[in-house]
């Protein structure tokens, strides 16, 4: 079954990136925000993202218009009832996500696939709060969504093979390679990258090398596009810390303990690109 109508709930960085990617693949998207002012902010962010891509020759102006035309903004969640697949990207808060899914569960046909973009919460637990645990699945996109070629498809305890297959097919249509994973803290991508970032921070804290040199060494040594510290700055150091704490809590292994320097920077409000300074200045 080819999917033609998708709704994205939540217009943060991930929501905008996901909606833009889907529209870029030629599929119509309903982008749903919680109220009118948030929707206006989201639409502005979307417009700016696309302008940036045009300035970098990645898109032409007509392609931008076409993409925008495929994305319908709304703050009325019930309009998502017409979608065949719904991707939820609201704030990482169990009760909030549960509430959103409860609303959607009421208005959507039972065959509609529910996707959550969570990276920390339990899919099985969220799925259990709906009437469709078999059609409930996680998708972990990696930021920046339009440029990253991979997506993790997370199978909850009750997710059906058919749902996984459909979502994998959908990911393929978006030009992404789907990596099927079982629900487990950090899946693949986060579980591997975060300890590396944390270790890089330890190296800086222990005075082994400067932040610049750590990044240069890793970039040139392992052909990374960004060094681990620049990557952390881009992700947001508060996010990195929250993630490490989550892995530490869930898996209980000391290797996931957040580096004290990371904690210190977060407390000082130096969160990376979004505050203008983290390990580097922006």
């Amino acid at each position, binding site marked *: 079954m*080819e999917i*033609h109508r998708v709704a994205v709930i939540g217009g943060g960085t991930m929501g905008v990136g996901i909606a833009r990617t889907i529209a870029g693949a*030629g*599929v*119509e998207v309903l982008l749903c925000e919680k109220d009118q002012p948030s929707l206006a902010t989201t639409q502005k962010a979307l417009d700016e993202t696309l302008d940036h891509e045009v300035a*970098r*020759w*990645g*898109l*032409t102006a007509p*392609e931008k218009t076409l993409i925008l035309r*495929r994305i319908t903004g709304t703050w009325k969640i019930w309009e998502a009832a017409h979608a065949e697949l719904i991707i939820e990207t609201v704030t990482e808060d169990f009760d909030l996500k549960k509430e959103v899914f409860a609303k959607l569960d009421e208005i959507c046909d039972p065959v509609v696939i529910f996707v959550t973009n969570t990276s920390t919460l339990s899919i099985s637990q969220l799925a259990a709060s709906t009437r469709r645990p078999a059609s409930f699945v996680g998708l972990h996109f990696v930021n920046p969504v339009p*440029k990253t070629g991979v997506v993790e498809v997370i199978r909850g305890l009750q997710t059906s093979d058919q749902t996984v297959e459909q979502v994998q097919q959908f990911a393929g249509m978006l030009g992404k390679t789907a990596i099927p994973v079982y629900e487990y803290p950090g899946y693949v991508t986060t579980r591997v990258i975060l300890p590396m970032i944390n270790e890089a921070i330890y190296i800086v804290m222990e005075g082994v090398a400067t932040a610049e040199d750590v990044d240069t060494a890793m970039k040139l040594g392992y052909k990374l596009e960004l060094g681990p510290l620049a990557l952390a700055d881009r992700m947001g150091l508060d996010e990195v810390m929250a993630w490490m704490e989550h892995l530490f809590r869930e898996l209980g292994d000391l290797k996931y303990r957040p580096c004290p320097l990371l904690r210190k920077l977060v407390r000082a409000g130096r969160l990376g690109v979004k505050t203008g300074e983290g390990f580097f200045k922006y």
Partner: protein
Amino acid sequence: MEMKILVLNCGSSSVKFQLIETSPEQIASNQDRLLARGTVDKIGTGEAIVAYEVPGKTKTKFSREILEHKAAIKTVVSALTDPLAGVIAKPEEIEGVGHRIVHGGEYFTGSVEMEEAVVKQIEDIIDLAPLHNPHNLKGYYASRALFPGAAQVAVFDTAFHHTMPPEAHLYGLPYVLYTRYKIRRYGFHGTSHRYVSYRFAQIHSTTRAEYKLITCHLGNGCSMCAIDHGKSVDTTMGFTPLEGLMMGTRSGDLDPAAVLYVMANEDLSAAEVSSLLNKHSGLYGVSGISNDMRTLLEESRKGQARARLAVDLFCYRAKKHLGALYAALNGADAVIFTGGIGENAPAVRAQICDRLDALGIQIDTEKNEAATGVESNISDAGAATQVWVIPTNEELLIARDTLRTILKIPHG
């Protein structure tokens, strides 16, 4: 022995179609009949646009939900069989469907009936034309289901150029890249180059086998072809339609080292650099105004310097390639202009042919100005090399090839 042939040209979100009645006799006398034509645009949306025309009679345009190519072709069938605006009573009247397939790789040297093995081979080479072949095939799958009794024929953009010798079709790269990935020059617009060279011969009541021709297809995409006694011996497009002449939004030839330099300095991904070269360059990139030659000619008349520069670059590069193909052929009997710009922009033709008298090319200003969109000889009476304008008609050639494939007669 007339047949009604449906010609389909399927893009990612569009279907262009023509219904043509043709027969060997009609081909010989150039009397094929266009029964209907149209387009379906914005496929995959709730508001696809269908335009349908019966030449000289009706013209309609409407919008409706069309989510995939099969639904689009179904809509085409209902338009063609409509009791009021239709031109046939039932779909079974269509005896053949001709599909434009962009890339035939090294497999296909001419038009062929789409038997299972053929479709498999086209699927095999999807990698060579990922933007075109998959959509061309969608048209085929839909058409096979909708016209089970009709012959399905593939007509390739690349096939005409299969006669290029190795020195023309290979690159100066490690040979293993050719054997491993089939990196070589394929050439495109073959149907157009073939059609106008055939027409030229037909106008002169001879066969193409008597002439050496340089055909210039100048549209939004541009290519030239050197045709020696009916066979393509070289063309300007290569592995992809990016090589050769400067085009509307494509760069044409450039030093690959410049690409590597820009990629490194602007931190561009492969997708971004592909978009830069294919969609942000050419007339549009140089002028910063438009990819439309009409706009640029208008602006340069008003003194817009960058518009002038873009036109100058376009014409100069075309002139250089024309000279190269002239050398490849060791002379030419005629140069033929076709395509949107080639057929309708006398100023561009004049600028390309200016100061080419060393090659026997001299055009007559008045004849050139008068020739827009019509077949005509625009060369100076005494010129050694004729210059012609011949409007292209790729759909017609696809219909004719389809008919000839069904009747198992030579393609000409």
